[in-house]
């Protein structure tokens, strides 16, 4: 059974379709990235998964049931939305203690101390949260979300509004949870570099429908045209090489990047004939590497394609 199973999910607000027949699943232990621009429907999907919004049609199941009807099932889920929801007038310890008790954690005191340590806030445990920086609040929010040791962690823009150092910290915490604790993580984000580093599987949402859904590796392998980065033995011959390559039918585009040449091949074309041809023209190739497409490029390609077909 999938941890999350979404089937034909639709949601309409005042006659406007926000979600259009979403279908995806998240398996145990996966770190799943739900990507999309603002207004794509990510938070709406998350709220339906949490049982806080009703679907217009279709199903959003967590552990095989709807959280809307299963109060006790929420015990197995940890949540951190874009707003931390931390009480500024309480201390870090009081905040965590409150949620430990609401989630009926067995040893609340010990768990609170462990979470303070996890978030690196032991020394500020008794300070009012209102005096904390955004990064400290985010880490405390994450500690609150996992204080009951959930099997599934739902995150909405987990590093939003954080400085780069705090972003790295939060990202490391997520990786630690998925690695050491084998927690399943579902995260909404439009921070592509973060998703690329953390997630094993992604879905790209645009205008309420899923445009791509696969592992990051498969998306990289299957999307766009293959690219080669060439370093020539004699940089003086770069202009000649560019001229030659641009005439080859298997090459769709060439770009110069310093002393390197970036060659985009037409779909399905192998790289070896290009290298052979360069050598035939006495242009030595010192290094040839296949260039992977970044998630950002994949994402932009998918979104542009969706915009074009709309």
């Amino acid at each position, binding site marked *: 059974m999938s941890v999350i199973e979404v089937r034909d999910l639709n949601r309409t607000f005042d006659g406007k379709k926000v979600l259009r027949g979403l279908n995806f699943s998240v398996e145990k232990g996966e770190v799943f990235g739900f990507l999309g621009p603002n207004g794509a429907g990510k938070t709406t999907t998350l*709220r339906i998964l*949490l*049982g*806080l*919004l*009703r679907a217009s049609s279709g199903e959003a199941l967590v552990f095989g049931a709807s959280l*809307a009807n299963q*109060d*006790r*099932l*929420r*015990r197995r*889920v940890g*949540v951190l*939305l874009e*707003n931390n*929801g*931390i*009480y*500024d*007038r*309480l201390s870090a310890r*009081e905040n965590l203690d*409150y*949620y430990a*008790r*609401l*989630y*009926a954690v067995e040893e609340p005191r010990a768990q609170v101390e462990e979470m303070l340590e996890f978030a690196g806030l032991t020394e500020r445990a008794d300070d009012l949260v209102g005096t904390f920086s955004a990064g400290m609040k985010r880490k405390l929010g994450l500690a*609150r979300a996992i204080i009951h040791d959930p099997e599934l962690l739902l995150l909405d823009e987990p590093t939003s509004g954080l400085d780069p150092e705090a972003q790295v910290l939060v990202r490391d915490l997520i990786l630690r949870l998925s690695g050491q604790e084998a927690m399943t993580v579902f995260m909404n984000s439009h921070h592509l570099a973060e998703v690329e580093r953390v997630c094993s599987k992604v879905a790209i949402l645009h205008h309420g429908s899923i445009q791509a859904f696969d592992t990051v590796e498969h998306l990289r392998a299957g999307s766009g045209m293959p690219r080669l980065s060439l370093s020539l033995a004699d940089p003086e011959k770069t202009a000649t090489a560019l001229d030659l390559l641009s005439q080859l039918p298997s090459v769709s585009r060439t770009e110069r990047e310093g002393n390197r040449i970036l060659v985009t091949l037409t779909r399905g074309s192998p790289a070896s004939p290009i290298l052979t041809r360069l050598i035939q023209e006495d242009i030595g190739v010192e290094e040839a590497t296949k260039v992977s497409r970044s998630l950002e490029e994949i994402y932009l390609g998918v979104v542009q394609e969706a915009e074009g077909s709309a």
Partner: protein
Amino acid sequence: MNARILRALAEKDLREVRKNRIAIYGAIVLTVIFSIAFPLIFTQVPLITGTEGAPDLEEVIPLIPLEIQGVIENLEPQQIPVVLFLGYLFAPLFLIIPLMIASIIAAEAFVGEKERKTLEPLLYTPATDLELFVGKVLAALIPAVVFAWANFAVYTFVVNLAGWPVMHRIWFPTAVWWPMILWVAPAIALMGIAVTVLISSKVRTFMEAYQASGALVLIVVALLMGQIFGLIFLSPFVSLLVGAVLFALDALLIKIGVGIFSRDELMTSI
């Protein structure tokens, strides 16, 4: 319902209220005015002004209920305002204490959380809608009633101590106060909470909620004026009846409030 969850909810709300200046200052002001200043004024003025300075109540006395007239007819002139006001007429006014405290805490618990965006994470917890509702109601009701009772103890002490030179005996509380404090005070506190819950879905800030629920003071004013003008005498029996009517209204309002305090409804108002 899980008692552990109810306790956690109530304790957290109380912890927050203790850090809410409006609640703390409100509690201090209420105590100073109702439990200390009023008894001091009504017991010390006759002593300072003497018999000749005692307020002329001849025009007022025919208006007040016959039952109270019967009690004060054998008193010395200096004792009349002390017993009349502190022993009888102020009894309904004292209800402002549980009403205001309950309204402040309820506004904090139901609307303050929404205002500070801390309500949403609460909705992801395993607590049921009913547990969240009851926990927050208890967080407002218990301290409001306990605070009212504590103030009643202070009032009793100050009235008897400061009134000793005039009364020469421990005469307070009178019988009318007991049902007012033990029965009507919890009922009106609950009403403050129920009304705050009802308006919580319509307002966005703590202050809006608190001000709107403040209109309930009119109930207290009506009881006070009704007694001053002889329209009603809050005898123990009448107080029991008033309390019962308030509790019945509370039950109705809370039933509506439970419907409003559901995850579905709350999410649309967050």
